């Protein structure tokens, strides 16, 4: 054994555990807003993630147990579960999670070696392949004309069957970002669009509560030093900066910065997705660039792209740039300043 002979009591599984703990408030808010179906989605995603991981580890000839226990597959599964619509059918969750783990993570070499954020790869595959179920968002409980209980939600997820007399249209609607986009295309102003009942005080009704819970979880991760402030600050800063620019230029056509902050995947992205260490830069300056770039891209996709939200694609595009960013943002070494 060579020095150092001491080590801090920390491990990959402890870090992953803290990330999952930080997601609990958001999950609670989710249940409050959309009903308990998300718990089933989370369980299904967890199971799929672990099984996919185990199969791939076995095929790769790598010891299964330590890698299965590190918790990274569970985090991927949870992030994907929280990204799909609340009443997503079971196969959507399974396909997305399995693709995330098997292709985006394990085919690249497993933990620590993947270039792209696995959960976002899974999300991207789903939204490109299955756009319809991926954009049918369950209306928040407060808005829906009819309610489903847990059994009915499960029946729909697993079997696709709805109780007598309830039609899918009555239950679902587009997400707030999606709604705004289609309203703008119908030549309504932002002000008119935001008057619809789906919108709340800053973002979507209900979803803004979930967003606030992500913020709380993020604060916990910062306090625990699981993540640093750089990526969230730069991402949210970038998003605010560019949305303020357009909002200032034409408030009728472009939503306000606070709307963008509270909508879609902005806050889960800032604290849980873009902060993935494996697929992000390691240097402080690099993290700032990475976050700011993702913020700008997210806005551009939301405002001018064909997809309702842009966090996933912004994340993947910025993942591509990470090696370059790291290379050009090396901090000065001790005693080498200016040299």
């Amino acid at each position, binding site marked *: 054994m*060579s020095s150092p002979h001491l080590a*801090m009591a920390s491990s990959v599984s402890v870090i992953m555990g803290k990330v999952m703990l930080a997601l609990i408030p958001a999950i609670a808010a989710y249940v409050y807003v959309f009903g308990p179906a998300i718990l089933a989605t989370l369980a299904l995603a967890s199971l799929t993630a672990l099984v996919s991981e185990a199969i791939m580890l076995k095929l790769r000839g790598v010891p299964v147990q330590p*890698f299965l226990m590190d918790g990274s597959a569970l985090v991927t599964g949870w992030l994907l579960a929280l990204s799909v619509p609340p009443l997503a059918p079971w196969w959507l969750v399974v396909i997305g999670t399995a693709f995330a783990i098997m292709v985006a993570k394990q085919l690249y070499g497993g933990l620590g070696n993947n270039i792209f954020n696995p959960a976002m790869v899974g999300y991207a595959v789903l939204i490109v392949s299955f756009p319809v179920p991926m954009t049918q968002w369950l209306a928040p409980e407060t808005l829906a004309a009819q309610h489903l209980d847990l059994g009915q939600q499960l029946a729909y997820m697993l079997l696709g069957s709805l109780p007598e007399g309830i039609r899918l249209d009555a239950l679902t609607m587009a997400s707030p970002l999606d709604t705004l986009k289609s309203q703008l295309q119908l030549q309504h102003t932002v002000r008119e669009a935001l008057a619809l009942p789906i919108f709340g005080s800053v973002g979507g009704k209900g979803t803004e509560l979930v967003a606030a819970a992500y913020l709380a979880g993020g604060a916990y991760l910062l306090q625990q030093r699981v993540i640093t402030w750089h990526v969230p600050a730069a991402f949210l800063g970038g998003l605010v900066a560019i949305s303020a620019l357009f909002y200032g230029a034409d408030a009728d056509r472009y939503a306000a910065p606070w709307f963008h902050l509270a909508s879609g995947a902005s806050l889960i992205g800032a604290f849980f997705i873009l902060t993935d260490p494996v697929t992000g830069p390691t240097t402080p300056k690099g993290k700032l660039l990475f976050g700011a770039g993702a913020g700008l891209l997210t806005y551009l996709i939301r405002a001018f792209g064909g997809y309702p939200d842009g966090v996933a694609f912004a994340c993947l595009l910025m993942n591509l740039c990470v090696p370059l960013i790291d290379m050009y943002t090396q901090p000065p070494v001790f*005693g080498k300043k200016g040299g």
Partner: protein
Amino acid sequence: MRKLHRFHGGVHPPDRKAESTRLPIARAPLPRRLVVPLHQHLGHGAKPLVQAGDRVLKGQMIGRAEGYVSAAIHAPTSGTVRALEMHPVPHPSGLSDLCVMLEPDGEERWVERGPLDYANLDPQALRLKLRDAGVVGLGGAAFPSYVKLSPGARQRLSTLVINGAECEPYITCDDMLMRERADEIVQGVRLIRLMLHAEEVLIGIEDNKPEAIAALRNAVKRGTLRMDVVPVPTVYPGGGERQLIKVLTGAEVPSGKRPVDIGMACFNVHTAYTVHRAVAFGEPVVSRVVTVAGNVLAPRNYEVPLGMRVADLAALASPLADTSGYLMGGPMMGFELPSADIPVVKASNCIIAKSQALFPAPPPAMPCIRCGRCAQACPAQLQPMDLFWFARARNFGKAQEYSLFDCIECGCCSFVCPSHIPLVQYYRFAKGEIWAKERERKAADLARSRHEFRQLRIERDKQERLEKLARKTAAARSHAAPAPAMQEAAANPADDPRKAAIEAAIERARTQKATITPRNVDNLTPEKQAEIARIEERRKKIREMARDRIEP
């Protein structure tokens, strides 16, 4: 209050210092035998001055400093030299080196000694006296102090930093020395300042040692010289030379340079103490204070005669039954001793008894998840995860480009790594590979230049033969007029470009040989060394005989 600066990173391992500071420093009793290595410092080992059977006095020089970077070795007590032989010395790989096996007679009879009249000695003479007193850096590196005791081209230094930070867990030898012998330390600092003409003296002590800070402050008050005793924040590795200088002055010693290049110098408090003993009493370095801690019943600091075996020393503190080995140095940068049959040397500041409970084996390493905690902890501001990647891929060029050699191997990166990757080991491996390659390259360069010179010589001989032949033919043709041009060339070789090239090549080869050829007389057994001495003697005689025959 002095404005302090901070260095990047650092960690806070549990310090475990209290346990060994409850009792004062004790003098370790003389063991039955001492194993005194002749190479206890950086640079060249000392040349042995004694043989088996010699009787020596305490403080008698038994090894002479050899070369510029070297220091003398002295008998730690009076007794009889039993043998000069190879014996394992403190080194992670269990390397053996030439040691003087000394059997103490228990009388502790000193060699004749007395204070140095330093006021009337010129600085150079005083430095050589310190080299002959075996004074080296006792903070851990054991660099011969006299080399650092010159202000260099600047004539005077701006700042003299005295290192009493002692940032590694467990180690308290400097702490206890400062508490108990503050006046002597201050005297030593005064002498060092005198030699370096330093304008300002800063004594940095981590703020987890309030007693030592108070003791030194009182000693400074009693003295005549102004010095600042500065408490510095407790952060490992705050006692690293470069880190301490940064904290105290805000200056960064440039990469690849030494503190003297920015007008500073840094000495450990224990070193200052030995400077004082050497000058005020003429006592060479024959003992040092060593912390014995860890899995022992009675952790404590001992003043240990150099050459005392770790087994004998640890026994004084009663190691517990489940002791599984010993670390020399601290738990962050020290190394595990291959056995306890290894002597304490000048660099040994601490012996830690290991047990499974105190130092559990790390869990198996997981892949790097690029979390960057290592970069946040690295005091050299490196990117350890990148260096790890390059070292593992054997991409050594890239590792050097990412400043591998600025790594001080403090262990902060491994300490914080959630994947338990032995990062420092990877860097040591990469450095070792790069050094080996460098040596190979130098050897190849040497071989090539020798080969080129041989080719040149063969060509020259051929040309000369041809010229001779040509001359002979010419002479045979016309007795009266030999070719004037050729004669000129022969008379004045400097004008002949070919000859000049040959001369230059010879000169090049000579200097290269002088600078590159490794000394093959280091690390030899005493028999071999004696044989070499005999051969040298014979050669000298033959040379003299030859001279006698030619000269008269």
